[in-house]
């Protein structure tokens, strides 16, 4: 049986597609050489960049091609490739972790985060750590901040196992306006 697959857009990266597909035991990091027909696609420059994470494959298409033209063939190549041998993938990638973190805070967990009054953005990422700006959400409520932090960390690690730590931006009392909870008002009066 073929593996289920579908493409998702990558915000701010018009030539990129994140293929949501079961990647099995493939290592997580930047792809140096891909298996199956994906290999030649990278060699001839149709695909300019590729990452693998747990549960998706990120591909960048060369600017002279369009996804409507190349998409179906690349989709088939990804489905066949994830089960094939011959991958050469780096052990982790700071760029990949940054992309994943962006996807988690703006996509996957967006509803959850906003429902907690939060506004998280990614400040920086290294090969095994990520720095997040939690906006003002958690300044006044440590428990809630911890809830958000833990949830983001768990979600990130599931997709990027090498993750060591998720840290908050030191000056989380940023200029961004804080959501005013009734509790907050009570405290001031």
């Amino acid at each position, binding site marked *: 049986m*073929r*593996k*289920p*697959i*579908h*493409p*998702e*857009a990558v915000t701010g990266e018009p030539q990129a*597609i994140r293929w*949501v*597909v079961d990647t099995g035991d493939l290592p997580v990091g930047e792809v140096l050489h891909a298996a199956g027909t994906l290999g030649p696609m990278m060699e001839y420059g149709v695909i300019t960049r590729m990452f693998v994470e747990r549960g998706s494959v990120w591909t960048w298409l060369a600017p002279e091609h369009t*996804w*409507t033209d190349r*998409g*179906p063939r690349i*989709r088939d190549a990804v489905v066949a490739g994830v089960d094939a041998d011959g991958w050469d993938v780096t052990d982790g990638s700071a760029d990949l972790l940054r992309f994943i973190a962006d996807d988690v805070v703006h*996509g*996957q967990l*967006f*509803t959850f985060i906003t429902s907690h009054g939060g506004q998280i953005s990614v400040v920086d990422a290294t090969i095994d750590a990520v720095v997040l700006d939690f906006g003002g959400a958690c300044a006044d409520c440590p428990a809630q901040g911890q809830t958000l932090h833990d949830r983001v960390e768990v979600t990130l690690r599931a997709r990027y196992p090498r993750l060591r730590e998720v840290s908050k931006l030191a000056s989380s009392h940023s200029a961004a306006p804080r959501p005013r909870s009734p509790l907050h008002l009570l405290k001031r009066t």
Partner: protein
Amino acid sequence: MSCHAEPPIRVGTAPPRFALVGSPNAGKTTLFNSLTGLRAKTGNYPGVTVARYEGRHILDDDSHVTIEDLPGTYSLDPMSPDEQVVATVLEAGTSGDEPLDGLIVLLDATNLRRSLGLLAQVQQLPHPITVVLTFTDELARRGGSVDVLALSRATGVRFIPVIAGDKRGVASLSESMGDVASWPKPMLPPPTDPSGVADWATSVLDSASFRAPGSDKRTSRIDGVLLHPVWGTVIFFVTMMAFFQVIFSVAAPMQDGIETLFAWLGGVARANIPVAWLSSLVADALLAGVGGVLVFLPQIALLFLLISLLEGSGYLSRAAFLMDRVMGWAGLEGRAFVALLSSMACAIPGIMATRTLPSAKDRIATMMGAPLMTCSARLPVYVLLIGMLVPGDLRFGPLGAQGAIMFGLYLLGAISAMLSAWFFKKIIGRSGVGLPFYMEMPSYRLPRGRTIAVSVWDACKAFLKKVTSIIMLTTIILWGLLNFPLRSDADLQRAGIDSRDEVAVKAFVIDNSIAAGIGRAVSPVFEPLGFDWRINVGVLSSLAAREVFVSTLGQVAAAEDPDDPVAALTNMTHTDGAHVGEKVFTPSTVAALLVFFVYALQCMSTLGVMRRETGTWKWPVIAFVYMGGLAWLMAWLAKLVVGGMA
């Protein structure tokens, strides 16, 4: 279809057009109603929305857009005429003949996997798409869940959850229709091959953490009984029986009220209009004739109230399912039953509902049966005749005899319709392998008051329109035929009639009118059935519309005894022929008439629609001739049987 071309560029200033695409029961018609305020019926089974509906929706900035409600469809493969319509409109929307600015695809959250198959097909088209996700409330109630934002990300199009009765979803859809340019587009359309589509749908559902709804416990418990081959059938018949009891017992008082009103108005007209012929036209033709049909408005309202209650609660789909088994034994397709069921209101939507049948042979066979289903136009005739046949207080145990006979007539019509469809299918030949048939079993719901009110109101409006147009016109023509040639005093003297005796004069005029001539001319045909010339005229006039039979008898009776037309009708005697002096409306004649009306195809509109749907006069002619012959034969048998019992 596979190319992802740019959508057509609009020229001129026509308002933006959007089409609603979705499977039957996805809530399309409800959304259409709340967007446009136009009324269209909502249904629980496929085939309800067959006609093309267009409406206007006003945006926040007061500009307006056109919304087209396409027939419900499970796919864009043009298998049935319905799906063909959808494919054609979407094609025209692409090629620029009737450009579409955007498609609004409705997906049923409780049936998401199958719905995504339709979305995958629609996404092959170049149009901008927004998805309206319906029944998310029911999904939650049945223990399912889905992440709507994740659905949007995974499919590349925006998902807007809309719950019936909640204005927020519609408002948000309305807002987005004002700004089509901002609708997100997928990076690339979903696959086109079936297994690719299935993989895509699985992947999309997984990433949206979709949990399918468990079957509704309450619904499945109720269904265990209602769909049981024995108990279900018993309950179905008891329900239907009660249905017709209600039509008689509840509507009767209201009917009496309207009757009294028209009798009083007739008296006023007779007393106050000095011109004799005008007074007769108003009192006899308009008030006694047309008014005589209007009397049945409460029954019509009640019939549609009950039908929409059954439909809105989800029971009608179960009835269709039960009857589908019966149809299956006869080798007929399930969808054919849906068409027959629609014919209970009127044969015309029934015939149009055959468009959901993929095979032309099945369509024709079903069309040949549909007019035999008891439509609402027969109701006034049945009520009038049954009232003459048995008294209202006669009861069989808990059941009123009148309601029981009415139920019997509906049953006779339904069985005959199915037998006829089966027979024609045998003659025309088999249509090969039956295609899969989806019949939705919606969960039991409380019917929506507004939908019911709209359905009853529409039915009453249509009835009133028919009464004031074709029925009134035919009645006036008949009045002319019944009152001409005019008689001079000399004529009356020669016939030995006292010209001061108004009733005698009127009886003489009518008895020697053009209509009487026509009625007598055809009497050899109907004589064996016990019909006299007045019934013949009634039967002939009912070819325009069945209700005219009632107005014709009303005219004749009012002329004979303006004070008590009902008694005049009951006591009417043969004026010539072998039975002079005997009562016309004997039980055997009334039975023959009732059966005649079960079978005869007395409806010009039905013939017209058949011609349009088959593209030839051949089938309407065949239907008219076979039903006419059958009507005569069955009426003759009924007369024999009832005459034998009496």
